[in-house]
């Protein structure tokens, strides 16, 4: 680095906080890559111009552009096939892709978590933590209007988050993110442009919890009192034109949209809801849809090779967890759990069930896509001979019988059959009990000796590390494996407090090793999010969560 960039960098650094300087040090020392630095910087609240300036000063060029280079024309409408919402359109109750995508079209978040897990400022212009990451301050964008014409203020932000942190509200889904992190009343207005979040404890990944990753958190007016589906109120670029329950929703470009530099080229979008995937794929193939917001490899195999279709493929942290009850025989012995885990041929599972559109995972939820994952931890591979010897060491060489309970969702029944086959190879006879989701979650999920559960995407692994793995039943609310290890719980607390990536990584390495050793869960893969576009549209941005950013979308031909 020559002297001039060094001086430029020093000038930038003098305006940065201690945590931000720490992140810059980590990049300069090579502990984190430039890409990871950009991501970590966005979490700490460094603006993209500042990040670009730092990278330029380090004589690096980086691109944060996620759009496509194809030019689109102004005007026109597109039709999108989308999963039927599973209930009333209500930001507080939303817990499914059917609804969250719609929320994100009409509404906006303080920040947008993109497909690379970078945070992009939206309704917040910038943010910064205090020294230990226990309080975060957000600068709120001015000049933003809701689609009914009223201005959005810091008070609206305060009211939105105090509502989402309220455990007294019926069906409040945001609590899955905020319980134990943010308490009601601890979001306060500092001044007309600043909002402060006083957390229950230090949390290095907090900005993700107010971003599109926490899909319930679209900013609503302070006066909001329910019935969102009558107004679809929000600050987003799309204003609801008509909505018919279970059938369709149409949006026009919002005339009051604040971001004049990013006014969408399209006049509007029409979304048709599909209760089943097959008809949606057929309608897309027949040309009555311009876009399919998502499809599975199982049903949409034909789209993957169709020359008239563009497939957007995004790796996500969506995955399946095979839990084994660690508190009762036969899976109370970790050797038995390890044996089943290494009896599975993950590569074959991915090739067979996902046509390669998934990544091999290592029985812990800190997937390789997360910057905090420790690349030095070895990947577990199939080894049937060792699995048999582990069974013998555990005194189970004669094998045993057990029932695997799971739900009829996507490829899960096939995965269950593959686990059954893997078990057979080492003497475990596995009977399958596959039911609908409601029955599984109601009757079997948390009580079954062996089961498979679906987990949706998160931008950071915090929720995956907390709810299914912590011993304390208040925090480990989804702990189907009944895993209870004080050493793990302590490591988890260290991880949550760690504000920068390299500090997180020293802990995540230990967590990964511990989970490999204990194996309460088998996590064979995390899979991709697939979206299909006709060749006549471009400029679509998707995320692993299922959000659609259509600000730059338009027709090309």
């Amino acid at each position, binding site marked *: 680095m020559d002297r001039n960039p060094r001086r430029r960098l020093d000038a930038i650094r003098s305006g940065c906080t201690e945590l931000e300087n720490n992140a810059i040090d980590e990049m300069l020392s090579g502990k984190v890559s430039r890409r990871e630095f950009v991501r970590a910087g966005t979490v700490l609240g460094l603006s993209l111009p500042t990040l670009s300036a730092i990278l330029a000063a380090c004589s690096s060029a980086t691109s944060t552009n996620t759009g496509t280079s194809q030019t689109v024309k102004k005007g026109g409408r597109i039709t999108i096939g989308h999963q*039927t919402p*599973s*209930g*009333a359109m*209500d930001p507080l*109750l939303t*817990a499914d892709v059917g609804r969250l995508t719609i929320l994100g079209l009409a509404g906006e978040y303080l920040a947008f978590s993109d497909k690379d897990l970078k945070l992009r400022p939206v309704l917040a212009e910038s943010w910064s933590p205090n020294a230990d990451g226990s309080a975060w301050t957000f600068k709120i964008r001015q000049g933003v209007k809701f689609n009914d014409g009223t201005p959005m203020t810091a008070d609206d932000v305060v009211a939105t988050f105090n509502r989402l942190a309220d455990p007294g509200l*019926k*069906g409040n*889904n945001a*609590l*899955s993110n905020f319980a134990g992190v943010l308490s009601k009343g601890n979001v306060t207005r500092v001044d007309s442009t600043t909002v402060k979040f006083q957390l229950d404890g230090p949390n290095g990944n907090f900005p993700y919890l107010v971003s599109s990753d926490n899909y319930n958190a679209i900013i609503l007016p302070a006066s909001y009192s329910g019935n969102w*589906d009558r107004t679809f109120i929000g600050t987003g670029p799309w204003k609801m034109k008509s909505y*018919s*329950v*279970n*059938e*369709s929703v149409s949006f026009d470009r919002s005339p009051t949209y604040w971001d004049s530099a990013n006014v969408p080229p399209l006049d509007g979008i029409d979304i*048709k*809801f*599909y*209760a*089943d995937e*097959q*008809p*949606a794929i*057929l*309608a897309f*193939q*027949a*040309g*009555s849809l311009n876009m399919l917001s998502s499809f599975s490899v199982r049903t949409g195999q034909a789209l993957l090779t169709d020359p008239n279709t563009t497939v957007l493929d995004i790796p996500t942290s969506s995955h399946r967890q095979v839990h084994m009850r660690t508190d009762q025989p036969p899976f109370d012995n970790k050797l038995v759990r390890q044996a089943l885990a290494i009896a599975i041929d993950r590569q074959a599972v991915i090739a067979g069930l996902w046509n390669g559109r998934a990544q091999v995972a290592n029985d812990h939820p800190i997937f390789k896509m997360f910057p905090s994952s420790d690349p030095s931890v070895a990947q577990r591979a199939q080894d049937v001979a060792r699995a048999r010897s582990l069974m013998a060491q555990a005194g189970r060489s004669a094998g045993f019988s057990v029932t695997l309970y799971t739900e009829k969702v996507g490829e899960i029944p096939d995965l269950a059959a593959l686990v059954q086959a893997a078990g057979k190879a080492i003497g475990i006879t596995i009977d399958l009990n596959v*039911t*609908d*989701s*409601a*029955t599984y*979650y*109601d*009757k079997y*999920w948390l009580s079954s000796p062996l089961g498979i559960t679906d987990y949706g995407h998160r931008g950071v692994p915090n929720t995956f590390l907390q*709810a299914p793995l912590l011993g304390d039943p208040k925090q480990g*609310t*989804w702990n189907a494996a009944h895993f209870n290890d004080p050493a793990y719980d302590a490591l988890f607390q260290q991880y949550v407090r760690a504000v920068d990536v390299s500090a997180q990584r020293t802990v995540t390495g230990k967590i990964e090793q511990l989970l490999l050793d204990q194996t309460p869960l088998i996590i064979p893969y995390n899979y991709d999010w697939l979206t299909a576009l006709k060749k006549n549209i471009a400029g679509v941005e998707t995320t692993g969560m299922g959000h659609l950013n259509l600000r730059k979308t338009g027709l090309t031909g």
Partner: protein
Amino acid sequence: MLRFLLRRVGLALVTLWLLSVIVFLASHALPGDVGRRILGPFADPRSVAALDHALGVDRPLPVQYASWVGDLLRGDLGSSLSFHVPVAQLLGRGVVNSLKLGMVAFVMVVPLGVLGGILAALRRGGLTDRVITIAGLSATIVPEFVSSIVLILVFSVALKALPISAQVPPDADPLTQIYHLILPALPLVLVLFGYIARITRSGVVEALDADYTRTAVLKGLSWGAVVVRHVLRNALMPTIAVVATQLGYLIGGLVVIEVMFNYQGLGQLLYTSAQQKDFPLLQAGVMTVGAVYLTATLLADIGYSFVNPRIRLGGAE
């Protein structure tokens, strides 16, 4: 005649009452908890219990049944648990949509089936008879989801001749609506054609062999006059009964067709409400389908009694 009618209506009401008991018990036998269904799998069990209590679904079954039937009799169908809108609103749309699709299929299949049956009977044992009987029977046993996919692939994806979606904008003119309903009606035509043709055929064959037909021929009537005046009038009675029983299916039983063509009729509504354990919607929907079935059979009975006085008189004895 009045007594016959009263007895029929009375029986229909008893059937509806029995249906209400069965629907109520069956929907409560569905696995899963209402509160859990609404709040999602990850909700705190305490919130689930609180919501169950607020909704009243934790009360004893007889109490819940009495309050449900009471509301039903007052015309209050309640509010959808999943969508937070009045059940009547969702059901109204479903019934109208189902009626449209059912009518289009009905208008296509009944004349086709009856004509096919008559033709087969008149050419009994010949090639036409065999083609109609075997093709009709084969089409009947193809499941709707298979015929739907094949029809969509041929007419929508490959030929682009017919629209794939049955749903049209609410302000579309009637012709556009019918145009969109042709493709979804075709699998129904395939299912019902063979059935209606077979019943018509056997009715016509029986009538052709009857003494009165021989008498009519022997007294010198033209063959056309014999068929129209004597054969069909007697032969079509079983067909009327069969067609009437299929009306209920056409209006409330088209789950697969409605899902495949993404059409918001009663069938799809019942399917999603069962999946979501949306009791008020599910129960009101099943009762509606039941009422449609019973009305159709009642009307068929009445129509039948006009054509065949023996039934009417027998009832009046």
